[in-house]
């Protein structure tokens, strides 16, 4: 498709559970809806692979519903900027895209939180969710020895998924204490479906050590990881592996919400009861508003979809269900809170910024994130601080500053499209050649 300009009443960014649910509601309410997603898949990261090989009935149901809803899917389309109200700039392999909206629903999901420890940059160390996503898309895990480490319920789900694909799960290391994790298990009593799911996973993982209060301290290898050292704080031991799946829970993707001027509260996008953000006509649902999982995202997405299409009664009818999932969300945050020891896994020469190869020792010389960025270039590389910025927040308590375009690295030509269009249509923007520098003598360096 080489079309460049798109106009919709409601645009949803993100085709994960929240985005699909929002799009379904809005489209079923008769609105012209598009879902924009970076990937070639429906379902976001959590339901990746469900399109081709459906295994999760819930995913299957929503993907089917989306297909019947009449909403348009703009896939492989990365949103890179919000140059003015009502417009998104996006990049597609065939060229830049300009997407116009009356109402915007942000369902940008979450990424994994990575914390640096010696050896963490070796090939073969991936986020658990990331490894699972890649494994669903053909990454070879059959016969591979995998240690799963970090934090959160995702560890078990990933171990289960990888085992089904033929991986040998060596062990699972959860940093949270057993007492907290068991307490979380008890809160699942309020969510029978979740409890049953957890029980099934545990059953399938019988024989795989699941240790709580254990975390990785060092990875070693040559061209890739060969072994990982784990500790329980008292003693340390080494486990040989071919892959280490390690992530310390999830961090919300708030870059695009920030670019649109949405206010954050404690690191998450602030929304009111209707899932409306502080920015006019912009809504947000799912993980960016708080890490609550797919079920929470589905309810929030439905509410956002109804609200944006002016079906407030239907939205309100879902408030109670959302409250239950918000309790689950709080329990999740309490149970898997990160232990303080994780802040000091990195040594002075451990790289924290992987794009610019900036060590912890170098970053420590500076008083804050902006100072460190300017002087050491940490966070200035291609990931735009998504990895090291989140780590620096945990390690140093440094806050992120505002986001600059493009929201994702983009081809330079993708930053050009609006004015060209406007001038072709007789709009106000002028072209480059008619007005040059008054004088390059007014130079700059």
């Amino acid at each position, binding site marked *: 498709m080489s079309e460049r300009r798109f106009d919709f009443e409601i645009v949803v960014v993100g085709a994960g559970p929240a985005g699909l649910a929002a799009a379904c509601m809005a489209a079923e309410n008769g609105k012209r809806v598009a879902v924009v997603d970076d*990937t070639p898949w429906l379902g976001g990261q959590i339901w990746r692979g469900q399109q081709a090989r459906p295994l999760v009935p819930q995913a299957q149901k929503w993907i089917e519903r989306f297909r019947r809803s009449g909403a348009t899917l703009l896939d492989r389309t990365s949103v890179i900027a919000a140059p003015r109200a009502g417009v998104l700039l996006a990049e597609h392999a065939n060229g830049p895209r300009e997407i116009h909206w009356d109402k915007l629903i942000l369902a940008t999901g979450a*990424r994994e939180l*990575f914390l640096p420890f010696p050896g963490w940059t070796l090939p*073969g160390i*991936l986020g658990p*969710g*990331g490894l699972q996503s*890649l494994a669903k*898309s053909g990454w070879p895990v059959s016969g591979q020895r995998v240690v799963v480490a970090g934090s959160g319920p995702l560890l078990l789900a990933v171990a289960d998924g990888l085992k089904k694909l033929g991986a040998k799960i060596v062990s699972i290391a959860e940093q949270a204490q057993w007492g907290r994790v068991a307490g979380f298990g008890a809160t699942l009593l309020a969510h029978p479906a979740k409890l049953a799911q957890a029980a099934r996973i545990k059953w399938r993982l019988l024989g795989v050590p699941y240790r709580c209060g254990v975390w990785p301290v060092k990875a070693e290898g040559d061209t890739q990881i060969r072994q990982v050292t784990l500790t329980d704080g008292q003693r340390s031991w080494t486990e040989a592996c071919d892959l280490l799946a390690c992530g310390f829970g999830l961090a919300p993707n708030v870059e695009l919400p920030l670019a649109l001027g949405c206010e954050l509260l404690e690191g998450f996008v602030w929304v009111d009861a209707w899932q409306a953000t502080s920015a006019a006509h912009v809504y947000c649902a799912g993980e960016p508003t708080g890490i609550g999982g797919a079920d929470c995202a589905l309810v929030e997405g439905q509410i956002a979809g109804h609200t944006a299409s002016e079906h407030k009664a239907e939205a309100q009818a879902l408030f109670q269900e959302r409250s239950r999932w918000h309790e689950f969300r709080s329990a999740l945050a309490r149970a898997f809170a990160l232990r303080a020891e994780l802040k000091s896994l990195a040594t002075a020469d451990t790289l924290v910024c*992987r794009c610019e190869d900036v060590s912890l020792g170098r970053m420590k010389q500076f008083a804050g994130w902006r100072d460190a960025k300017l002087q050491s270039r940490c966070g200035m590389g291609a990931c735009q601080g998504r990895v090291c910025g989140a780590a620096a927040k945990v390690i140093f308590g440094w806050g992120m500053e505002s986001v600059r375009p493009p929201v994702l690295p983009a081809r330079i030509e993708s930053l050009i499209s609006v004015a060209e269009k406007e001038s072709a249509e007789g709009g106000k923007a002028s072209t480059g050649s008619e007005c040059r520098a008054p004088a390059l003598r007014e130079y700059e360096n």
Partner: protein
Amino acid sequence: MSDQIELRVNGKSIRVAGGTVVAAAIALAGVSCFRKSVLGEARGPLCGMGICMECRVTINAQPHCRSCQVLCEEGMEVRTDE
């Protein structure tokens, strides 16, 4: 699933199933170093979701493509840092 797509990774032909991402094809080709870091370290995918930029490779002469987000296509030429 039958092998359907043929592409080249660092000049070596490899056949992969439909729906395979380029990052997976690189791993299947036995390549562990996707890119060399600023200090020359070998790096491979970290996040698998398109945000960490560690899996960037050159696809059909376009540098800095996120191999975890791109599906394999027939005849693709993929180059990693070696």
